[in-house]
């Protein structure tokens, strides 16, 4: 089992305008088991994106430690940003190939399973937002990462499109399991997708609750069950209501 241990003791920002530094993350600890799908739920602006940037190696000014249990190295990270961040001057296929060494069969399989088989040679400007996001997800899967980070990848999609994208993501993830950290502030989305929910509070960010989702994966499409689970969460853990 190749677990991932995340231990961030302190992450602070100093803004140029005032000299006091602001602590964004304090004592954040998380352990991801192999192929575990974790949703981080918390108010916007609580530092989730900062956390993901640290995990992706884009922000190195923090104290703490991130390591895979087997190799004690930093994980190879596939990052699905909130904006798709595709290279507009490269086609869908080129965008995916540039970020990974995926074989053409893998690429075709991924495009097929995300419903984008016909868009291989399309430039991103001709894709809808939902499609661009799916391409960004494929790009992350294609590199076969140790850890997949997803920063609200389905925000601002209309509900049917978002549901379809969630379903495609889960189908793909079941076929190609990876450790996933999925940031969202939509609790229904989190319950639909996650093995485990992590509730965060802000200023500075730290974990207040970890709750496993007990609904079997086969019943996650049942919206009544999701809603029941959600209502039960509010009864069992009233403190999370303030976060949403």
């Amino acid at each position, binding site marked *: 089992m190749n677990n991932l241990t995340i231990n961030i003791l302190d992450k602070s920002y100093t803004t140029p305008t005032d000299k006091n530094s602001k602590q964004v993350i304090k004592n954040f600890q998380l352990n991801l088991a192999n192929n575990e799908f974790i949703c981080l739920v918390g108010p916007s602006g609580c530092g989730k994106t900062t956390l993901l*940037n640290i995990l*992706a*190696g*884009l922000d190195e000014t923090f104290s703490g430690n991130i390591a895979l249990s087997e190799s004690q190295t930093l994980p*190879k*990270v*596939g*990052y699905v*940003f909130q*904006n798709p*961040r595709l*290279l*507009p*001057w*490269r086609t869908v296929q080129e965008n995916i190939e*540039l*970020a*990974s060494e995926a074989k053409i069969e893998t690429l075709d399989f991924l495009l097929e399973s995300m419903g984008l088989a016909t868009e291989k040679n399309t*430039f*991103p*400007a*001709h894709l809808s937002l939902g499609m661009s996001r799916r391409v960004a997800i494929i*790009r992350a899967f294609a*590199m076969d990462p140790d850890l997949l980070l997803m920063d609200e990848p389905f925000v601002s999609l209309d509900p049917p499109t978002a549901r379809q994208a969630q379903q495609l993501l889960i189908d793909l993830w079941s076929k190609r399991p990876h450790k996933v950290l999925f940031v969202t502030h939509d609790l229904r989305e989190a319950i639909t997708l996650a093995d485990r929910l992590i509730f965060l509070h802000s200023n500075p960010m730290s974990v207040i609750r970890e709750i496993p989702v007990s609904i079997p994966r086969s019943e996650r499409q049942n919206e009544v069950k999701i809603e029941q689970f959600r209502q039960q969460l509010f009864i069992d853990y009233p403190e999370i209501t303030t976060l949403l």
Partner: protein
Amino acid sequence: MGFIYRRSILTLLSISTFLALWQGLAWYLNAETLPSPVTVAKVLITEIQSGQLSYHLSKTLYRLSISFSIAMLLGCAIGIVLGRHQKLNTFLDNWLVIFLNIPALVTIILCYVWFGLTETAAILAVVINKLPNVIVTIREGARSLDTELLDMAKCYRFSKSKTLRHVIWPQLHPFVMAATRSGLALIWKIVLVVEMLGRSDGMGYQLHLFFQLFDVASILAYTVAFITLIQGIELLILRPLDKHAQRWRR
């Protein structure tokens, strides 16, 4: 199709109006110093037939392309570095301001004085004149690079050359084209001065000769040839390049 047709009609009309005005003015003034387009065309044909024009034009074109390539390559490299490194930029910015403001003539004279009346000195003088312009233009582009895409490249562990080729270069493309266009316009003017002052062939040398002979028709004939050439470069090389690089836009 109708639009393109109308446009080419307009272009034709505009050029013939220009020629008609020129012809009219030459006719009215009837002076040695303003030959008519017909006279100029005759001279142009004789010069082409004698091989003189193509000889001198190719010399100039050779100097133009060598100095242009060196200035663009160096300018892009330095521009990218300065655009990405704030401290280095602050340090070298003053040098840049100095070089931007040295008159072209001064650079040319100094190059000839220091390095002799040689081909290398001539090309060096043109490069030094053009380089600061390229650097400034490319630097603007390198400053405004999309950090989101650079972060993406870093996260997905793009190598340096991959980042340069697929992330940075396409963003710099409009700036490179701007530097190319303004550069071409600037360089050929400087090349002529360089040739006039210290070379024994090329357009600049010929123009100087015609000036001493007061041969305005030849001067105009060479000018027409040069304008055609530069327009040819724009239409046959730059436009298709531009079109290819912009194909991803909606």
